[in-house]
């Protein structure tokens, strides 16, 4: 691809929209608003990389944080409850580049199911959690899920899962070819009476809209795709936004304050450029798409005389009700070559436990997959059974025999929204730009630990039915750094219990919008990017409508 010379605005130009964050949501909103005729500047913390910058190099990507936030310049702190002093620990990881997490993600694209939007009214309240219904239903979001699949490029097989919610259109692309992990997944599921269906992936099984099909290199998770087959916003949305001639992507621009005027309206944002110089970009409206950790942080850093507890925070709910997606892991060895390192990460998925029977006494549910996502160094570090030696001749032999014959079952579950689980500003630790570090407070709701165990038992059962010759569970735990960052600026109809309304407009600020993982009311069962983007398409439509009506000034 050639480099585009896109429009350049001056900071003093009052553009229509400034978007903070060029990731899963920001890329979509940028494309939709610029195509609708609006002048857009997208400010992105990270660099603007392209497929030529992506290598199959574990040192560079995984250890060097070349695509993600780097804990040494962007430290985070962690505590389990507000009674503790948080300590330095890398607990948050997100894509820090144009395209955001969609560049290095695994690309699982599950739609949420109907239950995810109405679990409170269907299943009731849960003690110790603020589970609310969403202000929108699955039916309202369905057209936008379809839009994501067709605009972004998603491969899958409609109707393959009996648990799938209704859809208005099939997938635009057939599923990727089945892998050994998928054959074994189907074999095990058949024995148990479950359904293992082709994993919906935002990876092209065939050429689509000028992009090449996947060549099955196997380096999806944590790596960028050099084929442009992974449907990141970097390749699927951003070029189309720039092609309008109305959208400027401004990388290495670290927004740290949203500015407001005396009328309580947003006037633009202040950021640090690559040389750490302060720049104020004027805009008629601001859209935060900075992820479930950076979005609340930015609102809290934007406290002012008028908004002393942080911008858009009259509810006090900014940063609260942080959710990830929990889960559990089991490992297994098989007799013959699985070669999981070839091809996309996920081949088949099980949704039989998406909605658990209330008789079990466990709220929520989850999905499961079989996968192998260990490049060589990481396999040697973490891929062997928990009781295996970590050096010596036996270690060497286990590595030799295990790499091509192992696979893992991962479960992906609900996390309940707990008020005290949160993102806040660390009172003492600063990042390399002198800004307050992200402080995470998190303890698992007891229900979620029960759910992890339940799902781990299912994973073990499934692997065993698939014919594993050795099986091992990994300890139940929440694993950090967290990558699904959800719920910290939830949407809702009640301004006392939410931060944005059903159109993603801040309850407190009429020309401020927030759409990303922070908008989630509940966590779903995993794989949130699909829903983030469906929300983004829908939100952008409403933003454009409000702008047309002159509501944004």
């Amino acid at each position, binding site marked *: 691809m050639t480099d585009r010379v896109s429009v350049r605005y001056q900071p003093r130009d009052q553009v229509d929209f400034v978007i903070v964050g060029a990731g899963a949501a920001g890329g979509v909103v940028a494309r939709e608003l610029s195509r609708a005729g609006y002048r857009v500047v997208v400010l992105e913390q990270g660099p603007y990389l392209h497929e030529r910058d992506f290598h199959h190099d574990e040192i560079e990507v995984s250890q060097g944080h070349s695509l993600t936030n780097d804990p040494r310049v962007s430290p985070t702190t962690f505590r389990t409850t507000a009674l503790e002093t948080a300590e330095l620990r890398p607990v948050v990881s997100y894509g820090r580049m144009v395209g955001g997490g969609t560049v290095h993600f695994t690309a699982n694209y599950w739609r949420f199911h109907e239950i995810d939007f109405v679990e409170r009214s269907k299943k009731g309240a849960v003690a110790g959690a603020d589970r609310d219904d969403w202000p929108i239903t699955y039916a309202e979001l369905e057209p936008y899920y379809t839009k994501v699949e067709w605009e972004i490029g998603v491969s899958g097989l409609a109707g393959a899962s009996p648990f799938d919610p209704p859809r208005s259109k099939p997938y635009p692309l057939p599923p990727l070819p089945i892998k050994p992990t998928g054959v074994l997944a189907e074999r095990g599921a058949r024995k148990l009476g479950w359904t293992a269906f082709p994993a919906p992936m935002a990876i092209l099984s065939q050429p689509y809209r000028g992009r090449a099909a996947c060549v099955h290199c196997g380096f999806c998770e944590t790596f960028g795709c050099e084929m442009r087959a992974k449907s990141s916003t970097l390749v699927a949305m951003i070029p189309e936004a720039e092609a309008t001639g109305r959208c400027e992507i401004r990388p290495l621009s670290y927004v740290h304050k949203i500015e407001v005027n005396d009328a309580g309206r947003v006037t633009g944002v202040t950021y640090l450029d690559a040389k750490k110089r302060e720049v104020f970009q004027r805009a008629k409206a601001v859209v935060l798409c900075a992820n479930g950790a950076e979005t609340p942080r930015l609102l809290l850093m934007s406290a002012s005389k008028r908004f002393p507890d942080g911008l858009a925070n009259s509810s006090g709910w900014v940063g609260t009700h942080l959710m990830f997606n929990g889960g559990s892991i089991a490992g297994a060895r098989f007799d013959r070559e699985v070669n999981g390192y070839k091809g996309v990460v996920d081949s088949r998925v099980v949704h039989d436990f998406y909605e658990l029977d209330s008789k079990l006494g466990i709220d929520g549910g989850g999905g499961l997959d079989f996968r192998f996502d260990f490049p060589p160094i990481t396999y040697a570090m973490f891929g062997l059974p928990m009781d295996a030696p970590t050096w010596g001749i036996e270690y060497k032999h286990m590595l030799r025999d295990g790499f091509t014959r192992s696979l893992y079952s991962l479960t992906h579950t609900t996390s309940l929204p707990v008020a005290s689980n949160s993102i806040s500003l660390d009172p003492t630790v600063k990042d390399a730009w002198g800004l307050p570090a992200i402080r995470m407070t998190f303890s698992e709701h007891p229900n979620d630990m029960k759910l992890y165990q339940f799902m781990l038992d299912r994973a073990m059962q499934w692997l065993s039915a698939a014919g594993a010759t050795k099986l091992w569970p*990994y300890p139940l735990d929440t694993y950090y750094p967290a990558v699904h960052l959800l719920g910290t600026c939830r949407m809702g109809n009640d301004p006392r219990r939410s931060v944005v309304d059903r159109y993603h407009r801040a309850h407190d600020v009429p020309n401020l919008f927030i759409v990303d993982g922070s908008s989630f009311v509940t966590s779903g069962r995993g794989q949130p990017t699909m829903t983030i983007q469906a929300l983004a398409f829908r939100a952008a439509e409403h933003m454009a409508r409000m702008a047309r009506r002159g509501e944004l000034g």
Partner: protein
Amino acid sequence: MHDSSLSRRRFIGVASGVAVWFAAAPNDLFADTGEGRADSAQKYNVLTAAQAAIFDAFAAQVIPNEPGSPGAREAKVTQFADNGLASFAKEQRPDFEKALSALNALAGATGFASLTPAKQVDVMRDMERTNRSAFEALRAPVIAGMFANPSYGGNAGKAGWKLIGFEDRFFWQAPFGYYDQPAEVKRRD
């Protein structure tokens, strides 16, 4: 933090783990890894000859050599570690050097590199038990050097990749392995 808490990281899409050894600011990544340096095996960027000998002996026990199957020493992980300490892992140099000294001190007057292999293993077991973090500071670069892209100076002749059966072709077609051959896909039992 114990190993078990690290295992999930890769699964969920992130690694930053024990392997802090390799952590580096992105801009520093390729700052100073000369291509040809790995070939000049006797010349090191930061390690002294004595340090290199200790680490080399340690590496040879982490992934031992066997007939027809090179170990970490043969894969030149010492060259890898030296390259890393000079560039993308330079922050780890103090911890690395401290760990090397600790290992050598445990070996007594003769020094670790001069011990018999059996004695080296004893000393390493002792260190693993009594000074786990130092042990890991040395083990991690051995593993990384064995399996990293050879351009970093280790994994010589792709020894690590050949050991585990990883082929760096990065372009595949089904069937990918045994279980997705047509007969296996059709199997119903």
